[in-house]
C-alpha cells in the first residue's frame, strides 16, 4: 500500500481514489490494465498508475514521457482522455518519476505515441467501462443504456447523470474488463484533431520550470572545468586565486563518467553560480594529455574511414547477386559520402541537482529524457538500489538526444557525495559544445549500376564509422551495427533494386558519441538519397519517376505523389533555379521533401522547402507540423553550418559564435503536408529530418551541376 500512497501523496491526492495502471509495455507482451485501487499485486509490481480519479472529481492523468519540446506532455494524456471520454481541460497532467517496472519512460526514438498507442488507450477504455458499470449498478439500469461523455456517465433514457468522481469509489471495486473496446478512429474527438497545447501559456510567461530553474534548500552551485582534450589527466590544480573569490567554497578533482570511459575533471563549488564561473577563469589546471593531441582528431578518424571505404565491409544484407550484377552493369557509379560530427546544442545547457544523503539514499532533479534509464545509471554508479533513488524530472529546454546521456547527472552525484550537500551543476555552453557526446561523423561508400536499358539494377550502401551501440552499450565490433544497417534495409526503404546490398565497417573513436535527432538516419539518409539521385541521372531519368518506378509500396508512392503535387515538381523553373527531392523512412514514418534553390553569386539561396509526412495516426496535426518545421531547420543547419571538428585533440568550436546554427534571416519558405494513411502511428519528432540534406544537395545539383557528397557545405561557395 505504501507505494501507492506515496505516489498519490506526491501528486497531492488522497488515497481514496480510483487508480488504473498498465502492467507491461514490453514488446510482444500483451499489456494488461491493472486496478491499483484494490489489487495488492499491482502494488508489489510497482505498476505505474496512469489514471487517478478522486471522489472529488479531480482526474489526474500521468504522462510517462518527459517533454523536451516534442509535445509528449499533451500527446500521451490525449490518448488516455480520448478513451476515458474526458476533455483535456478537465484533467491535471502529472509527470512520472522513473520508478518501478512500468515500461520504457524514455523520450527517444520518436516512440512515445507509437509505443503507447494501444496500451494507454486500453487503460482509458477500461476505466470508462468500469465507471459506466458502476453508474448503471447504482441506477439499477442496463449498462447498454448508459454512455460516458465529458467525465460523466449519462443514462440515455432518463437523461440523469453521475460524475466520474461520484462513481469512482464504486468503480474501483469492479473487475477490470478483459477486452475493453477501443474507439474507432472515426469517433475520435481528440486524437487527430487540432488542439492548442495547454503547456504553452506557462512557456510564454516565464513560468515554466526547466531543470536549470529548480532550486532546493541548502544547495550549492558547481561548475566543471573539463579536460580540453576530454580524456586528459589532472596533474596539478592551482586554486589560490579562485579561493580568494567571495563565495567560492572548494575546488576539487572529480570525474566525468561516460559510458565508454571515465575522464578526470575539476569542479568549483560556490555559494552562487557567478562566483563559481568567475573562479573557473582563474583556476589553473595542468593536464597530462598523453598523445591525445595526435590521436583525438576528426581528420585521423575520417582518414581511417576513407581507408575502410577502399575495402569490403561486413555484409549485413544482400538481395540478388550484387557483385555479378554490378560487374555486368552498363554504367557503374561509385562515390563516397561524408557527414560530420555534430553537437546537439539544446538551448538549455546540461544541468542537474543531485543530493546524496547521509542515509545513503539519493535524490536528483534534472532535465532528462529517460528517468528509467537515469535510474539504472544512477543505481549502477552510486552502487545503491533503485528504491533508494528518487528522480524528479523537470522540463527540458531542448535535448535532441543529448539529455539521455547522463554524464552531467553523475558528475553532480560525485560532487554531492563529496560536499555532502545538494549540488546544482550547470554546464556552460562551452562545456556543451567542446565535450560532446556528438552525433557521430560517418562515411558511406556507395556503388550502383544501371543496365543498358536504363534500369537501376545494382545498389550497395556501405556505412563506415563509429557505432553508438559499441561505444555506449559495449556491443560487439565484429558484427554489422543493426541501428545503422537495419533502417537502410530494402525491407525498410522499399527500393526494389534487383541486386541490393548493405555492408558495414566499424571504425572506433575516443570522441564521445551518442544519438542525435534521427540518429543514423541523419547520416545515411543523405548518402542513400544523394546517391540515388546520381543513379537516376545516370539512368537519364527524372529523380521522382526513377523512385516511383522502383517503389511498389503504396504508402511510399502516395508520399512521393503528394510531394510532386504540392511542390509542383513538374513546373518549368526560371533559369538558375533547381529542385531536389528525397524520401526516407525512419521511426515508422515516411517523410519526403522537395527543396528549391536559386543560384546566387558563387552559391545558392534556399527558396523553399516542402515536406510531406505519412506518420499514420497522429494525435495533433499542429504538433506534427511543428516538429516537421523543427526538423527542416535542424536538417538545413546540419547540412550547411560547420560541424564539430577536433584538431590537436580539441574541439575547434566553443560557443555559438563558432558553432553556428540557422537563424531567422536564413529561414526559407516552408510548407508541410500530412498524408492521412490511417496506419499504425509512426514517429513524429525525428522522421522529418533525414530527407532535408539530400533534397538540398540534389537541388544544388539541379541548379548548378555541382554534386555535394560531403557535409557540411557552404551555401555561398558550394565548397
Amino acid at each position, binding site marked *: 500500500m505504501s507505494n501507492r500512497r506515496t505516489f498519490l501523496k506526491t501528486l497531492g491526492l488522497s488515497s481514496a481514489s480510483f487508480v488504473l495502471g498498465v502492467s507491461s509495455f514490453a514488446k510482444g507482451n500483451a499489456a494488461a490494465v491493472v486496478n491499483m485501487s484494490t489489487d495488492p499485486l499491482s502494488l508489489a509490481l510497482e505498476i505505474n498508475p496512469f489514471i487517478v480519479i478522486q471522489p472529488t472529481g479531480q482526474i489526474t492523468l500521468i504522462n510517462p514521457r518527459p*517533454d523536451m*519540446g*516534442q*509535445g509528449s506532455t499533451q500527446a500521451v494524456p490525449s490518448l488516455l482522455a480520448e478513451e476515458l471520454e474526458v476533455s483535456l481541460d478537465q484533467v491535471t497532467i502529472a509527470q512520472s518519476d522513473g520508478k518501478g517496472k512500468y515500461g520504457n519512460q524514455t523520450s527517444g526514438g520518436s516512440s512515445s505515441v507509437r509505443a503507447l498507442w494501444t496500451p494507454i488507450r486500453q487503460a482509458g477504455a477500461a476505466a470508462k467501462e468500469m465507471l459506466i458499470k458502476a453508474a448503471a449498478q447504482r441506477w439499477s439500469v442496463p449498462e447498454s443504456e448508459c454512455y460516458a461523455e465529458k467525465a460523466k456517465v449519462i443514462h440515455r433514457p432518463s437523461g440523469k447523470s453521475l460524475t466520474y468522481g461520484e462513481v469512482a469509489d464504486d468503480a474501483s471495486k469492479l473487475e477490470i474488463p478483459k477486452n475493453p473496446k477501443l474507439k474507432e478512429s472515426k469517433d475520435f474527438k481528440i486524437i487527430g484533431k487540432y488542439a*492548442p*497545447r495547454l*503547456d*504553452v*501559456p*506557462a*512557456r*510564454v*510567461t*516565464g*513560468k*515554466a*520550470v*526547466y531543470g*536549470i*530553474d529548480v532550486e532546493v534548500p541548502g544547495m550549492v552551485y558547481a561548475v566543471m572545468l573539463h579536460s580540453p582534450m576530454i580524456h586528459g589527466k589532472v596533474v596539478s590544480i592551482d586554486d589560490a586565486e579562485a579561493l580568494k573569490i*567571495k563565495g567560492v567554497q572548494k575546488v576539487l578533482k572529480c570525474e566525468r563518467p561516460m559510458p565508454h570511459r571515465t575522464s578526470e575533471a575539476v569542479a568549483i563549488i560556490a555559494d*552562487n*553560480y*557567478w*562566483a563559481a*564561473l*568567475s573562479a573557473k577563469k582563474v583556476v589553473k589546471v595542468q593536464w597530462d594529455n598523453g598523445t591525445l593531441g595526435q590521436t583525438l582528431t576528426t581528420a585521423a578518424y575520417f582518414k581511417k574511414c576513407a581507408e575502410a571505404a577502399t575495402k569490403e565491409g561486413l555484409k549485413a544484407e544482400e538481395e540478388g547477386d550484387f557483385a555479378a550484377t554490378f560487374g555486368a552493369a552498363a554504367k557503374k557509379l561509385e562515390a563516397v559520402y561524408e557527414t560530420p560530427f555534430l553537437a546537439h*546544442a*539544446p*538551448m*538549455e*545547457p546540461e544541468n542537474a541537482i543531485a543530493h546524496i544523503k547521509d542515509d545513503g539514499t539519493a535524490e536528483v532533479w534534472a532535465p532528462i529524457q529517460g528517468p528509467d534509464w537515469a535510474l539504472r545509471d544512477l543505481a549502477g554508479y552510486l552502487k545503491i538500489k533503485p528504491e533508494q533513488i528518487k528522480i524528479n524530472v523537470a*522540463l*527540458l*529546454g*531542448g*535535448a*535532441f538526444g543529448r539529455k539521455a546521456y547522463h554524464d552531467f547527472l553523475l558528475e553532480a552525484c560525485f560532487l554531492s557525495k563529496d560536499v555532502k550537500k545538494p549540488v546544482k551543476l*550547470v554546464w*556552460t*555552453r562551452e562545456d556543451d559544445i567542446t565535450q560532446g557526446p556528438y552525433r557521430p561523423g560517418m562515411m558511406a561508400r556507395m556503388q550502383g549500376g544501371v543496365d543498358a536499358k536504363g534500369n537501376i539494377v545494382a545498389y550497395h550502401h556501405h556505412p563506415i564509422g563509429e557505432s553508438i551501440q559499441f561505444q555506449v552499450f559495449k556491443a560487439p565490433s565484429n558484427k554489422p551495427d543493426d541501428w545503422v544497417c537495419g533502417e537502410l534495409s530494402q525491407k525498410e526503404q522499399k527500393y526494389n533494386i534487383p541486386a541490393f546490398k548493405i555492408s558495414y565497417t566499424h571504425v572506433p573513436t575516443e570522441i564521445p558519441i551518442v544519438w542525435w535527432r534521427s540518429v543514423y538516419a541523419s547520416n545515411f539518409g543523405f548518402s542513400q538519397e544523394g546517391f540515388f539521385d546520381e543513379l537516376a541521372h545516370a539512368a537519364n531519368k527524372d529523380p521522382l519517376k526513377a523512385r516511383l518506378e522502383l517503389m511498389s509500396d503504396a504508402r511510399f508512392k502516395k508520399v512521393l505523389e503528394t510531394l510532386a503535387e504540392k511542390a509542383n515538381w513538374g513546373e518549368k523553373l526560371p533559369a538558375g533555379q533547381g529542385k531536389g527531392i528525397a524520401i526516407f523512412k525512419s521511426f515508422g514514418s515516411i517523410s519526403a521533401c522537395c527543396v528549391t534553390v536559386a543560384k546566387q553569386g558563387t552559391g545558392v539561396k534556399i527558396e523553399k522547402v516542402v515536406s510531406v509526412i505519412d506518420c499514420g495516426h497522429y494525435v495533433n496535426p*499542429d504538433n506534427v507540423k*511543428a*516538429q516537421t*518545421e*523543427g*526538423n*527542416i*531547420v*535542424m536538417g538545413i543547419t546540419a547540412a550547411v553550418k560547420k560541424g564539430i571538428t577536433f584538431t590537436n585533440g580539441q574541439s575547434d568550436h566553443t*560557443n*555559438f*559564435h563558432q558553432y553556428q*546554427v*540557422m*537563424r*531567422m*534571416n536564413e*529561414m526559407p519558405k*516552408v510548407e508541410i503536408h500530412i498524408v492521412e494513411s490511417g496506419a499504425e502511428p509512426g514517429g513524429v519528432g525525428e522522421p522529418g529530418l533525414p530527407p532535408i540534406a539530400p533534397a538540398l544537395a540534389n537541388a544544388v545539383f539541379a541548379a548548378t551541376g555541382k554534386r555535394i557528397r560531403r557535409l557540411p557545405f557552404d551555401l555561398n561557395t558550394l565548397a
Partner: protein
Amino acid sequence: MAAITLDINGKKHDLDIDPKMPLLWAIRDVVGLKGTKFGCGMAQCGACTVHMNGHPTRSCVLPVQSVVGSKITTIEGIGTEEKLHPVQQAWIDEQVPQCGYCQSGQIMAAAALLKDKPTPTDADITSAMQGHICRCGTYDRIRKAIHTAAKSKSPKGEMSGGK
C-alpha cells in the same frame, strides 16, 4: 561585494553582490526570477534578453553595476497568464513554443520591436530577431506571431509592456 539597487519590473531590490556579476545571474539566482534564461553567456543566442529602459539587452554580459538607475523589465514583467501581453497572446495563438526555453528572449525582442514599429515588415522582423537562436526551429511561427500581434490591439492599444 557592494550594495547594488536594481529596479526590476518596477520593484526596487537592494542586493549585496559583486558589481561585476552579470545582470542575468542577479535576476535569476539573487532576485529569483527564473523566466530569463542562460543560453551561451556571450550574447550570441538571445535567451537572456531583457529590456533596459525599454530596449532589448543581453543580460548575460551586462554587469549589474552598469544598470543601476535603469529600469529593467523581464518576461515576468510584461504579462502574466491572467493578463497576457499581446505578444504572449500571439505566441499562444500561433502555438510558437516547442521546448520554449528561448522564447522569453524572443518575446522580449518582439515586444520591443513592436513598440518601435507597430506594423513591422518581414525585413524589420528579420533584423530584430536574427540575433536569437531557437534550436527547435520555430522561426516561421515567430514571424507569423509577430504579424499577429501587430494586428491585435491590447486593451489600451499599448505594446510597451512596461510594468
